[in-house]
């Protein structure tokens, strides 16, 4: 501390902690959306830094598509319990049944779009006025334009043309009843920043982020996890066994694995530094439908 200068990771960390505390200070009933993925695990770690020795001023909320990696779900339950923080889980399965929703079928069908219904129902059920999420601006072009405090109307919609100006580090969370704010504390972090932070802070991650042998479906050059009842195999599919890791952890039906020998954090970071393909481009099948796929989902209330 002799030079009075913060390293970039310290600057990003301090900014994220400030944003979390603004949520605690400005809202009545916030929540932290937790998926078991590395970005939301990083958020939990930042919340510890922001609020300990106190309790979190919000529960962890998981919108469970039912299409999870078991490793991620186990990790989620373990983490919430070991921290003594409240975990709320709501299931897309239940929404489908109650609302008689038609589930997408066919190849590469995913529950990502249906997740929005469950999320909005959960927000209504608990009257959440702010939901903290782990989205980053480097993930995708539409995200690059989103504010840290992103105000959504009663239908959860994002209107890119009516975003509030956000100046200095002043966050305006004033809303009307029924509206809510999505808050993104790690907006300014890149994928590599998250990994470097996880390494520096020695944060535990689910094992699927590291290289392991696994049975997979080889489809259109992408490796999908085999999951009974979730992914229907097709004639052209090949079942293969490969040494892989997952670069993101999303819905199992649309998250592809990458072949890898990186079984430590150092090795995973080295791989990410060397890669020439973006995170979503490599592993998310759902964003490749159209140029504006993410923008459309966000306008519809997606996270």
């Amino acid at each position, binding site marked *: 501390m002799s030079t009075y200068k913060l390293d970039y990771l310290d600057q990003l960390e301090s900014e994220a902690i400030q944003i979390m505390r603004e949520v605690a200070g400005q809202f009545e009933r916030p929540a932290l959306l937790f998926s078991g993925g590395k970005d939301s695990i990083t958020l939990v770690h930042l919340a510890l830094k922001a609020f300990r020795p106190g309790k979190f001023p919000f529960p962890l909320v998981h919108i469970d598509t039912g299409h999870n990696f078991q490793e991620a779900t186990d990790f989620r339950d373990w983490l919430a319990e070991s921290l003594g923080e409240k975990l709320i889980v709501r299931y897309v399965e239940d929404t489908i049944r109650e609302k008689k929703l038609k589930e997408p079928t066919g190849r590469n069908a995913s529950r990502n779009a249906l997740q929005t219904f469950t999320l909005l129902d959960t927000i209504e059920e608990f009257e959440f006025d702010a939901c903290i999420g782990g989205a980053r601006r480097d993930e995708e072009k539409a995200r690059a334009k989103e504010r840290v405090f992103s105000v959504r109307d009663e239908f959860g919609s994002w209107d890119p043309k009516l975003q509030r100006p956000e100046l200095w580090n*002043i966050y305006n969370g004033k*809303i009307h009843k029924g509206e809510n704010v999505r808050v993104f504390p790690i907006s300014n972090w890149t994928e590599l920043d998250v990994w470097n932070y996880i390494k520096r802070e020695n944060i535990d991650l689910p094992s699927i982020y590291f290289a392991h042998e696994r049975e997979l479906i080889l489809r259109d050059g992408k490796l999908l996890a085999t999951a009974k009842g979730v992914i229907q195999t097709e004639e052209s599919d090949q079942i293969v066994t490969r040494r892989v890791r997952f670069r993101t952890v999303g819905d199992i039906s649309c998250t592809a694995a990458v072949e890898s020998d990186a079984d430590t954090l150092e090795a995973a970071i080295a791989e990410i530094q060397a890669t020439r*393909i973006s995170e979503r*481009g490599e592993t998310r099948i759902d964003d490749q439908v159209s140029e*504006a796929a993410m923008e459309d989902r966000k306008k519809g209330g997606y996270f």
Partner: protein
Amino acid sequence: MDLLRFITAGSVDDGKSTLIGRLLYDSKSILADQMEAIERASKSRDDGEIDLALLTDGLRSEREQGITIDVAYRYFQTTKRKFIIVDAPGHIQYTRNMVTGASNCQLAVVLVDARHGVVEQTRRHSLIASMLGIPHLVVAINKMDLVGYSQDVFSNICIHYNELAQKLNVGEVTYIPLSALNGDNVVDKSVNMPWYEGEPLLSHLETVVLDQDENLTDARFPVQYVIRPQTPELHDYRGYAGKITSGIFRKGDAVTVLPTGETSTIDAIEIAEKHYDEAFAPMSVVLHLADDVDVSRGNLIVKSDNQPIVSQNVEALLCWMDAKPLKVGSKYTLQHGTFRTRCAVREIVYQLNVNTYEEFTDAESLKLNDIARVILKTAKPVSFDPYGKNRVNGGAILIDETSNVTVGALMLQGEVA
């Protein structure tokens, strides 16, 4: 490694998006699949050239109209530094977006078309950069390829710009002749302009000295949240959570809580449950005070020997950001850090023509994107520093009381009678 946030200002025709695309491309920050997507999209265009601007325009309507509507953030790093590019639209109707983008930046790149020299929008962009207190300015004279890489053209623009800079309160100015399209002086030194002895843009961004930018003199700590576990073992724990906006706090410092004026000393400084003897801006910390004083969210803790202005009559530069005009006498919520109070607009002292810098004294209302000097009367006193001295503790926003939208950016200047 340190971090530089910089804004690029320019309009469609200045080649701003091409410049950003070039920085990302030549610094190898564009990944293979993103490049393929651009190549695919470029093929559907008439000229078939790879359009680096497609990298930055993220929204459907932006791609359709070929313009940038909102502020976008880009990230890249070199071996020397990490960068956040704040990509703001330059057209006059998006002044508010540029103000938004500029508020956090340490450096601004103002693009000038070598064929046109200093034009109206150069003046506007420079005014905003200076008003928002950006300490480092780069005047990037682009499209040098279209003027035969002429040193005379470059020198003349520098002379013109320097005259303009004299009228503004701008920090250090650096002039770089470049061609974003061809890559001259963006990442690599141009072979076409051997007369230019300075560095290319990227080297300049990597080496510009940032150490003096953080205000380490005026210790300011807005309280965001009070941590009170209220468990049997932590029964008396009471920690004030916040981010130090400027200055340095040390254990044992005599402090004053504003606006109440109560005094105490710092008993402990905590970061993630570890104790430290000192902490400085921009760290997020937990402060503990020695005495049982009344402190809550919205209070500002300062060192007692260095106090800000505490006043209900405030003079400020204002950028109006809402379609509904501001009228003298209207009431708004003012948010300054974590502090909120109601306020009324007492007077518009003058309105500024953002292109000519002329001042008009007869304005009764302000339209979207107007900039003016105003006097506000607040319900509770605001504890602030003049913006020129302290960017974070000198900035505030106005919030519309019915729509809840942020409608104005305030650069607080001082107290009036």
